[in-house]
């Protein structure tokens, strides 16, 4: 296990280099950052002066070389837009993003798993069909629409929750639910199908024939094995929640990474995009490692393989 973890951690280094190069190339070819900084009707001469002052007139490889050498020193550069240390700005946003992501994930698990089990237990019943239907709806429903509807009905027409912004628990409920609904809609059918598969297994039949209570059979014997795909789907969803909760963050004015990244992309603010992408990549790698460790804990046979 230790050797496996070391190997995975070492793999991070080339991955980060490849990501940073890809982002650099994409932003470089996307356009001229100076065009986004000065008014549309600024003169060519004014743009040229600013371009030189910011070092943007240097050849591509030289610019990338400077970026790499600074990155080695832990300096990801200064934001063109904010004129501040890019990494600092990204870290400033991370708590808001992590708060929303962890709350949404928790909510998704709390909603998704019980309904998945319920659905499996009551297979082909009205409840099973209803839960499956809602799951399909949850996957199909665009998050911005759900967010706007929740604001309309639970914040404007019935002022139960704040419309937007970050604050106490009450501010988390609507954006958290908006994100959680889509994820729970993926967890529920997954739990249902893996529970159904497991409930057919010989060892479950044995457990039942031993006279164990159905509750014990479900939660102690079947559920743990049904968790493996759930962990997999969570590991896949977390990077999306960290970097891609953009629409939900925008709808609810949640000051997280998603909003920062999209503004930086529109403004071609290379330093912020690089810093944010590298942080998101590191978080993603961390969670995928965590998921691997969790697989092993849930199912020791994986480790033996």
């Amino acid at each position, binding site marked *: 296990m230790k050797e496996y973890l070391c190997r995975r951690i070492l793999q991070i280094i080339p991955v980060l280099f490849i990501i940073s190069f890809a982002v650099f190339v994409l932003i470089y070819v996307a356009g*001229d950052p100076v065009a986004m*900084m*000065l008014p549309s009707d600024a003169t060519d001469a004014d743009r040229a002066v600013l371009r030189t002052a910011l070092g943007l007139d240097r050849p591509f490889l030289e610019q990338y070389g400077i970026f790499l050498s600074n990155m080695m020193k832990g300096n990801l550069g200064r934001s063109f837009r904010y004129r501040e240390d890019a990494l600092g700005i990204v870290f400033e946003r991370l708590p808001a993003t992590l708060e929303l992501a962890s709350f949404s994930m928790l909510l998704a698990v709390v909603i998704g798993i019980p309904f998945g089990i319920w659905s499996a237990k009551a297979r082909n019943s009205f409840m099973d069909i209803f839960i499956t239907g809602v799951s399909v709806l949850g996957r199909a429903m665009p998050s911005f629409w759900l967010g*706007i509807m929740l604001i309309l009905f639970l914040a404007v027409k019935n*002022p139960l929750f704040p419309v937007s*912004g970050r604050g106490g628990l*009450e501010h988390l409920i609507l954006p958290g639910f908006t994100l959680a609904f889509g994820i729970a809609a993926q967890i529920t059918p997954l739990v249902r199908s893996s529970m159904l598969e497991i409930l057919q297994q010989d060892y479950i039949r044995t457990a039942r024939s031993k006279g164990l209570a159905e509750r014990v059979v479900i939660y102690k014997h079947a559920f743990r094995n049904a968790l493996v795909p759930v962990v997999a789907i969570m590991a896949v969803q977390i990077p999306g929640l960290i970097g891609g909760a953009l629409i939900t963050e925008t709808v609810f004015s949640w000051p997280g990474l998603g909003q920062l990244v999209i503004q930086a992309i529109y403004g071609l603010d290379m330093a912020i995009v690089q810093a944010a992408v590298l942080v998101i990549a590191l978080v993603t790698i961390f969670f995928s490692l965590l998921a691997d460790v969790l697989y092993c804990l849930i199912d020791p046979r994986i480790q033996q393989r």
Partner: protein
Amino acid sequence: MTGKVLKFFAAAFLLMFFSGSSFAANERILTIAMGSDVLTFDAQNHLNTSTDCVLNNMTNMLYRKDANAEMVPELALGHEQINEKVWRFKIREGVTFHNGDPLTAEDVKFSFLRAATDTTLKEYPYFKVIKDVRVVDDYTVDIETFEPLPTLLRLVSKAGADILPKKYIETNGWDHFLKNPVYSGQFEFVSWVRDDRVVIKPYEGYWGGMNTEWDEVHFRVIPEVSTRVGELLTGGVDIIYNVSPNEWTRIGNNKGTSLVNGETTRIMLLVMRCTEGTPTADKRVREAIDFAIENKVLADVLLSGSGTPTRTRVSRGVTGFDPSLYNTYCYDPERSKKLLAEAGYKDGKTLEITFTAPRGRYLMDSEVAQMIAGMLEEVGIKVRLELLEWTSFNSLYVAKKNREMLMIGLADNYFDANYPLIHYTKDRAKGETDFSNDEADSLYKIAAKNMNHEERVAQYQRIQQIAAEERPHIALYQLKANYGVNDRILFVPRIDELSRIEEIHRK
């Protein structure tokens, strides 16, 4: 287990229900919601209206624009012109920065010289006309320009002319200043959570007297327009910016909120390529396009009145504006067809043009572009409409890769025709419209240095008449800005689109 989960949610729901009243706002706190965040607290490096909305309340300038864009003295007690390139300003005594340091001529010199010499600053292109700033005594400065500059008062009253605290910045460094900004204006900095809110409060030691109407002002960042409206309707915010027409009814029909609109300096226009070899190089073709477009329909129907037809790039409210070209337009499809025939587009020969427009940048921009394309098709012009997202659009425009016709909205935060009319000079037009007119060129150069105000205005108006006749730009309409306002607030929009807290009152 499921039962427990349901109970948990029911409890949480009830908790929220009963704590709902805690969202109500404090009446001495003014909350303004904007679509985008402040970029920086460096007043000389943003070129951004949202940033200026906050900063203009925290800073002082020698002169400042009032609600009608007229320049009134702020820190300056007055000015005199020593010669045609040197202006002397007497500065108000007893002014202090928010940290208590006195504001003197040294701070004024530091601020203007920085803007005029630091090429990395976004305001540098405007302030590079300043050659030197000399301290005469503690409360007197001379500003010298490279050339005679009739627009100097416009320059010292525009964003970027804000006076910075020299001693505070030199002692603590820029990074500290940007996190703990100190100016000398009516409001001082309290906090900034990026993409969430900026909080400012009245400065007790303000030379003009402390603002006693508000305890705090919150500028909230709410990018999504329907969310901004939701906050306004529930009393979470008092004023919201940039309300799109589809939300007007919701605000107007709601008890306790109103829709308010005001003019801006932004002119939506078509940039016409006059480069030899392109179909639009023929003046008759440009004229035919202008006669095919019914500006009033665009402004009244599509924008629901959020624009006023115009034929000039200079906005109403700007020095040098020609009123005869405002609230008027050319529309005559028959004449348009005739002009096209005269230009050779007849007997089966059709004019084909590429029309580039941005999507999602200006009010209803892509809808307006589609309607214009439809109007042009009606007179027999075949239009290839290219709708681009802003980053791609702006890169294309800046790289001067515009084809026959391009739609853009240009504002003027200088408030002088000198700024917009540069487009009709040969040098500036090169590569973009390739428009060239000797009279316009020479008038622009003369007006730029002409210290006689009346003569200068007449020269700028003549250039506008030439542009309206030659059509390197076809102006469409001057945009209005729309705000949603809580009825407890008295708010009159300004043409510079800024929120000046001293002009916002509780009813």
